[in-house]
């Protein structure tokens, strides 16, 4: 699991497995900022891609990338520690998979309002159908549709998830 600063920094000090989330004391102004910013969590097992995503998301104002999980269990731990507004997840992970994660979340009312976005290279109709069954609102092809995801997140961060 990689924990991020409230803003989109690199991954240098993000790999503290014992630490669930960044301690609140580090930045006293954070709670206030979180009220405004779109809280995003990423589940992606490839460093190259998660780096790129976090780099690109950094350009979106009023968006906070809370953390990056690389496996299903990491993602669950991270989500239990702190809910998010938007969950971006890949289907195939190093351990477990995105759909299992969605299955678990779909049975938990805490995550009912979380926007679930799948960003994956598995884009067949069957995957889309299964994801839809588990409450995924958006499905993007990781290779060709990332700009669309960026657009969506910009819009959400502007208008808020209810907007």
């Amino acid at each position, binding site marked *: 699991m990689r924990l991020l600063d409230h803003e989109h920094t690199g991954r240098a000090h993000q790999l503290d497995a014992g630490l669930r989330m960044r301690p609140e004391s580090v930045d006293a102004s954070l709670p206030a900022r979180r009220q405004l910013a779109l809280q995003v969590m990423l589940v992606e*097992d*490839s460093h190259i*891609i998660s780096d*790129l995503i976090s780099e*690109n998301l950094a350009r979106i104002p009023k968006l906070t990338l809370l953390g990056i999980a690389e496996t299903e269990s990491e993602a669950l731990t991270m989500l239990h520690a702190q809910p998010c507004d938007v969950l971006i997840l890949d289907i*195939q992970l190093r351990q477990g998979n995105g759909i299992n994660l969605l299955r678990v979340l779909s049975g938990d009312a805490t995550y009912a309002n979380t926007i679930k976005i799948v960003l994956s*290279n598995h*884009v067949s109709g069957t995957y889309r159908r299964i994801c839809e069954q588990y409450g995924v609102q958006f499905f993007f092809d990781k290779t060709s549709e990332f700009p669309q995801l960026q657009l969506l997140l910009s819009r959400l961060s502007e208008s808020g998830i209810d907007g």
Partner: protein
Amino acid sequence: MVTDNSAPGRSGSWLEGLSRVRDGRLGTFPRHYRLGALAGALSALLLVNWLLYAGASRGLYPDAALVPLLTLANCALVLLFILGATRLIDREYKGRLQNATDLSEAMSLLSAVSDNTADPIFVSSREGLLVFANPAALEMLGKPREEAMHRPLRELFSAVGDVSQSGAEDSRVMQENISVTVEHSVELPQGVRTYATTKSPWLGPNGKVLGVINISTDISRRKEAEDTLRARESRLEETISRRTATLRRLADHLETVREEEKRAIARELHDDMGASLTSLSMHMEGAYPLLPSDAQWTERKAKIQNLLRSLVMTTRRIQTELRPTMLDLFGIKAAIHELTDDFKQSTNIACEVNLPDEDVAIGHKLEITVYRMLQEMLNNVVKHAQATQVDVILDVDEDQVALTVRDNGVGIPPERRDVPGTYGLRGLQERAAFLGGTVSITPGRSGGTVVSVRLPLTNDHVNPVSL
């Protein structure tokens, strides 16, 4: 073993001769012949006496000559009769003598034959008592002649460990007047011997059954050879089945290794090449706005995008062909859906899928097997069936998983259905056989073909391959 011999036994003719000797009837004249001869002699006497009296009464000669004439004539007649009778007696005597010689020759020939043959020959009476046995038969019974004769056969055979001679076969032979062959073994000091004994009815001169004639052949060697051959055959079969099992295990091992390798390559494609391509695309998305906006670069941009898209599609296709990620992630049901969706798209053949409602948990190995089998079956439909509609049915119960693919195509001609390798089903059959399952190919009710694979859910007999 009991064999009915078609022709009723007639081999008792020399024994019939024996029985005639016993009755004392050989060479005797018939009674009516003797009475006729006596009557003829008396009639001749009467006729001669009457003729002489008649001659005297007609005065052909004086009365005084009558008595001497009568005496002379009668004496001559009696002499003639005596001569005739003597000749007859002599002839009969000679006949008897000849018959006795013939009989003695026949007897000595028979006894030479029966004494010198290695085949046991023995005869039992209607009551089942031994009435004749040649030396070979006595050897088979393990008793000297005086101890064996006129003893029940059943008892004699029981004494040498053969309880099969219950007499039932003898009764059948006598009642039905047939000849049968039975196989039986006796335990002698020199070892167990097996005989094939032909039992035939012993018929008297009037066709009455007097007993049973048994002629045995020692088939111990043949039996041993048969047993050896049978043992060799069963060893051979065992070896073949063991080797077949080894080959199947080897094939299974290779299949598993192949699947693992394919899975590893697919994983690498996804993790390495897929991720690189994705990140390359993302980088390019960031770079496109920086490109000059002239026509040349617009065209280049389109080309780069097309190249990237085609590269991504190829990578994904190879990855899915190598290992259906859907199967690993969501199990067989989702994988079948994905496979049939692709099938519909690429072939334009309508495909109906019928899967169990509940989750299917049959283990990874069976899942990949079922998946590969379905791929093979659908390939066959495309290649051979000329179908427009395919139904895929998966049934899972406690004991087995059944996968059926039904098409409405041209069907398989019956003569080709059982030919190995037909319809590309060889691999299916081999794979199913290894897993203890079966493949059936039947014509559909309204044409087409139904291919059904059944695999047991418990594969206790599947052992790891030993190379």
